[in-house]
């Protein structure tokens, strides 16, 4: 009796596993253009990855409704990489096995670097809406990589220039979240500040993301008499730090990056967010394409879009446009089209330079005024 059951059990497991092995291999071939979307779709960083899937879905639906690209329908293949390098390589090979033509992703710089090792050998064009590590474009190692977001150093330069030339600050604390994105940004900010010789970096430190309380760091900022904090990282930690500073009745200026230029930041930090500076893509909210993109998300998902949505929307448009212009999905032809053909997107009219960074997508500094990010000209 017992023997029988465990036998049955084993058989079920074995058969189940074999079936699992076979199913993904079966995929049917149809003549479509396959757009892979890779990024964190689950796990703690999911909120940075899901908007890009949605953006791609919206663009693809629209384009398919209009008859597709080169007369073919566009097929979306979304794969999760949880923002981990080791999973990203699996994701990349999975997309390769499914014969993708181009890839939108990955979300995190680390995962992108790991995955690019695989895409590069297979000559697949990858465009990230959010990977900001400067090496990705500047090292020249990844000719197949493009991005629709400014790199860490470009953002840091803008913020530092703003702090030195507009605000005329002398003592600045640089704080980061120890992460790939935040620390990369902070390193450059520190470097530019020191090179300028105009201001002193009184504090350079990392905080632990997700920690319950940042009062010790906040006290340290106060103790070092910093006039401003330049923060590298995302909005959850930024809002905690700002809130704690203001609750301690400190008036220290807070300057941050694109990860903080998010409406959620204002909602979370509430009245404490007033006066915070953050750099971000040039204001395009009047751009008709942008208005349409934002509205499409609201209609389809019933909520406001999340981080990197516009960048992902732009990247999808740029990729599909390049395929259309190139007349095929051939690697060289599409690369050439990306670098030469201008395309109208929600963040402006763009094309890509030889390294893969977007040209035409400007960056500017914003300030929170009356609960809204206002572009400073």
């Amino acid at each position: 009796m017992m023997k029988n059951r465990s036998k049955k059990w084993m058989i079920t497991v074995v058969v189940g596993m074999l079936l699992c092995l076979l199913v993904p291999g079966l995929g049917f071939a149809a003549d479509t253009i396959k757009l892979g979307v890779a990024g964190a779709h689950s796990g703690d960083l999911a909120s940075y990855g899901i908007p890009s899937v949605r953006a791609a879905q919206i663009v693809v639906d629209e384009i398919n409704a209009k008859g597709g690209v080169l007369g073919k329908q566009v097929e979306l293949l979304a794969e999760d990489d949880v923002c981990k390098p080791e999973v990203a390589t699996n994701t990349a090979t999975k997309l390769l096995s499914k014969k993708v033509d181009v890839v939108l992703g990955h979300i995190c710089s680390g995962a992108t670097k790991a995955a690019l090792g695989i895409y590069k050998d297979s000559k697949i064009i990858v465009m990230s809406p959010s990977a900001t590590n400067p090496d990705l474009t500047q090292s020249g190692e990844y000719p197949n990589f493009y991005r629709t977001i400014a790199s860490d150093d470009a953002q840091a330069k803008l913020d530092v220039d703003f702090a030195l030339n507009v605000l005329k600050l002398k003592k600045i604390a640089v704080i980061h979240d120890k992460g790939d994105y935040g620390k990369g940004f902070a390193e450059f900010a520190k470097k530019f500040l020191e090179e300028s010789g105009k201001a002193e970096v009184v504090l350079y430190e990392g905080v632990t993301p997700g920690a319950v309380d940042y009062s010790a760091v906040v006290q340290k900022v106060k103790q070092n008499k910093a006039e401003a904090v330049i923060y590298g990282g995302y909005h959850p930690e930024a809002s905690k730090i700002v809130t704690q500073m203001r609750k301690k009745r400190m008036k220290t200026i807070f300057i941050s990056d694109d990860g903080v230029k998010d409406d959620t930041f204002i909602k979370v930090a509430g009245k404490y967010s007033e006066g915070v500076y953050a750099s971000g893509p040039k204001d395009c909210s009047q751009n008709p394409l942008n208005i349409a993109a934002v509205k499409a998300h609201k209609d389809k998902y019933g909520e406001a879009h999340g981080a990197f949505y516009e960048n992902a929307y732009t990247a999808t448009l740029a990729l599909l446009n390049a395929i259309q212009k190139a007349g095929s999905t051939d690697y060289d032809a599409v690369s050439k089209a990306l670098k030469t053909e201008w395309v109208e997107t929600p963040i402006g009219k763009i094309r890509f330079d030889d390294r893969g960074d977007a040209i035409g997508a400007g960056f500017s500094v914003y300030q929170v005024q009356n609960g809204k990010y206002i572009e400073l000209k």
Partner: protein
Amino acid sequence: MVTFEEIKKSFLACIWFMFLTFPIMVIRVNTVQNEIEWRWKNMILIGIASFILSFFWRNLFRQKIKKGKQKDPYENTEKISIFQKVLKEKKYYFPGTVALCFFVIGFPLLFSLYQINIMITALIYVMLGLGLNIVVGLAGLLDLGYVAFYAVGAYSYALLHYHFGIGFWIALPLGGLLSAFFGILLGYPVLRLRGDYLAIVTLGFGEIIRLILENWNEFSFGPSGIANIPRPGFFGIKMSLEGHTIYLYYLMILLVLFTIFVVNRLQNSRIGRAWIALREDEIACQAMGIDKAKTKLTAFALGATWAGMGGVIFAAKTTFINPASFTIWESIIILCIVVLGGMGSIFGVISGAMILILLPEYLRAFSEYRMLIFGVVLVVMMIFRPGGIIPDIRRAYKYKSKETH
């Protein structure tokens, strides 16, 4: 069999779960937009689902209890699963092995690049699982920071390559050695600790290593990681991505076989017996004249060696590493492999690794639900097979009368 009593019980379960999931499943607030969404449909679905599932749940339990009455389910000594039986009998053993060999050798020819790639990952985890099995399964030392040694291995290859141009084949033993050294370094101060205190210290150790890698930019390049780590070479022949992957697959098969061989020999050696004795009863073990400190330290060192080698291969496979790959979740997953597979049992650990690493990949079909299902699988597996999938068979020298201890 469906009696009134049963229906009543299920009905109560249904009401209870509808109550339980009410705020989180039904109401969805958006504090950013100040909107509330009411999803009553979910409540009905939950109600129906829990009503039906509670029948299954109770039924499974009845079977488990019935089984338990025949034999104490937690006593592994005599329970021999069909798998182990197959292993014992030559009649099945031989053709089984041959078929398995053909499958293993033919695997890269039959399946796509993706399948080979995830299989390599699974094989790395087999190695890690077998390594941790020495520490947890054999020596009974609960280690929640095993990933630290994995990180040491991966970073030693990446850094040695970056600074000195050292190749994969030299880095592989070096990574193992360095990890063993770190194993002793960790083992030394924690000799006195037991059980969960040991667990938390090892957890801390794992986090310390990760945080140092994350913060010490000059040494480890910080969170942006190290890219362009070469894949293992084969007498300097240039290979395509596919070639590399297949090569790495066969390499992993050989390494796993080597690991199985070593672990198997260790298990039956003097030191292996000492580990098992230590796991069963520290005091009795000492009284028998076993050097406790030495035994524990060898367990840590040998366990760490495999993690180190696994790390080197990991770095070579992904060609990029950063500290984000070495979080505490990784340690937890490896521990799950060992416990779920069956502590102390080599075949158990192998099947545990295959299931736990391949399952999330195949669950991709369920996309966002995959981790949810993964969690459920862990719970259900543990409840219905608490000793693991293929539990270890104790070597028993039996006296006629059945005795309990």
